[in-house]
């Protein structure tokens, strides 16, 4: 893995560190910038805002939003809220896992897809629902799912 460019991280830390209790906001902005929380940057945060590294990692590992590894190009969030659950969310997840040959939390070898099982996306009346990057797909059927995944795969391959 190539070393992350530290410049943007330093700018984020400097601009946020003026407010008290800014650790989580800093972590969120770092993750938006890098897609995950690189270890090296967690160490820098610890030094710059004067909080022990253990506490920084403690906070980061507490919240499900934070990732410590790079995700795939397309992050598929499969909703497991109550409405989705009783409308077949496990089938959706099962199909994706079979189809992409990865399990929840993993990334495909071609770095195109990561599957994440999430608690609730709040679109319950369209259950079952998933979100790919920022787009929500509702009223899913296995047929629709297959089409959507193929679309992203084609897009990924043509951009590769």
């Amino acid at each position: 893995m190539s070393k992350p460019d530290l410049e943007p991280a330093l700018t984020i830390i400097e601009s946020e560190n003026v407010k008290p209790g800014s650790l989580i906001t800093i972590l969120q902005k770092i993750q938006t910038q890098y897609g995950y929380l690189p270890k090296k940057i967690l160490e820098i945060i610890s030094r710059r805002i004067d909080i022990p590294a253990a506490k920084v990692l403690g906070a980061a590992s507490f919240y499900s939003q934070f990732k410590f590894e790079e995700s795939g190009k397309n992050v598929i969030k499969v909703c497991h809220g109550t409405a989705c659950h009783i409308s077949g969310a496990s089938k959706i997840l099962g199909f994706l896992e079979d189809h992409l040959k990865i399990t929840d939390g993993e990334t495909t070898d071609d770095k195109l897809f990561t599957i994440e099982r999430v608690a609730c996306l709040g679109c319950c009346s369209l259950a079952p629902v998933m979100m790919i990057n920022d787009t929500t797909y509702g009223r899913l059927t296995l047929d629709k799912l297959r089409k959507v995944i193929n679309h992203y795969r084609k897009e990924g391959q043509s951009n590769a």
Partner: protein
Amino acid sequence: MPEKQKGVLLRKDSVKTTKLKVGLGACGIAAGANEVYNELVRYVSTKKIPVMVEKTGCIGMCHNEPLVEIESEKEGRILLGNITQKNIDTIIDEYMEKQTVNPKYIVAGSDYITEHDGFFKKQVRIVLDNCGRINPESIDEYIEMNGYKALHHAIKNMTPDDIIDEVKKSGLRGRGGAGFHTGSKWNFTKQAPGDEKYLICNADEGDPGAFMDRSTLEGDPHAIIEGMTIAAFAVGAKLGYIYVRAEYPLAVKRLEIALDQAREHGFLGSNILKTSFSFDIRIKEGAGAFVCGEETALLASLEGRRGLPRIRPPFPATSGLWDKPTNINNVETYANIPRIILNGSEWYSSHGTEHSKGTKVFALAGKINKGGLIEVPMGITLREIVYDIGGGIKSGKRFKAVQMGGPSGGCIPESLLDTVIDYDSVTRTGAIMGSGGMVVMDEDTCMVEVARFFLDFTQQESCGKCTFCRIGTKRMLEILERITRGEGVKNDIEHLEQLALGVKSGSLCGLGQTAPNPVLTTLKYFREEYEAHINERRCPGGQCKNLISYIIIPDNCVGCGVCLKNCPVNAISGEKKEPHIINQDICTKCGICMDSCKFDAVDIKR
């Protein structure tokens, strides 16, 4: 590029212009409303059609998304459902030419009777009054609907004590779930010694199956800002935070727009409405931890730490954010405030029951015909919500239960459908009012599996601080997993009950104290399902994989071969035009065959 806020006005001939409003809540967008909006804008401008295309928030009728409302002086309001970018052009052409719309698209309207009318009829919209009517990104439209009038009145004509009295008299109770009296809560913060006080809006809507707060934030963000500002004036806070889930990017975006507009107009910031009162609001995005909905955990998270709850007292009203007095209320609670101040406590308390006043917003979802965002007066029965508003159960199936209150709540059975919605009646069933998630379940739902689902959730979200919650939920989950796998043993039910009572009484915060509720209520009302799993190795809901098998009904099977082709493990065999067979030794029970069969030939043997 900033988006246009007023829609596209093409002919400024009069204010009587016909308006087309597209419901752009997160649900609508997921159903394709953005595409409809873009197509409308494109079509209307190319054809130079004299109408205004506008954005609005969640209209509420989620089962018919995407929704477009036509509003004209002459024809009144017509709500159109199931609109796509393909059918919208023809609909507009027809409407502009003949002022009519193909009835199959009309889902509600002042002059129309539709099969969907029951959906709005029993609702009373106070919190959602603007939601789906105004453009949430336009402060002018909010002001037009009497927006910020309550703030003006509160600051100029009332003292903080007057406001607290009015809120107390209204009978408003916390809409986050616990139902504490809002006015009394405010009074505690106001009375607490110290000059530095904070105000927090809890928008960390974490219950799976709930989207009320998201819809309110997306559809009427100014109402929450106005409610918070009035509350800040009453309790003496100078800084407020909205702690909102990071999973709600649209809500965050619309809040940011609304905050900027409110500051520009002098409703927020220094010297509000040219008085000496100053108050500002910051947005903090949650980072994904259910426990942060608990107020002391939320405070820890706001301070940049792990979201661990702590023992109360001291309550946040005396020692909250940075140990300063802090008032915390939920989104819906604040959204009620401007209406209470504007219309008076008497008007507000005329809705509801003796101990639960006003209305409650629910996210109605699950196996129901007409799911959506609804607001009902307290005192309405569950039966009215499920059948009159929700239109009954999907696909002619039988009702089994309604789940209220998410992982902290419980499942209410058919025999209790006449329970009225108020804090006390719902609590008596073993469920809780909760923040408003209401998921309807049908005969194909396994109640043991539902209990396992919620326990799995709370067990994962348990912060780990106290033993009862951390280990108790884990042990309960293990038993439930065993039962749903078909490996339940004698005494499992007794052990579950024993553990449930222990976790309930021994846990430190609300998460643990309520986590056993889904188990306790299903044990209370659906005990026979637990017994069927344990004693007969049978799943009456047909959901637990180890206890069911997929079979092909030979009489229905035409031998089309679709299931055979779709089966991922090649468990299906059969000649063309002959009934097929599933090899039970290979079948993984994924259910793809059942979903792909067009002849209802695949069934579940329970």
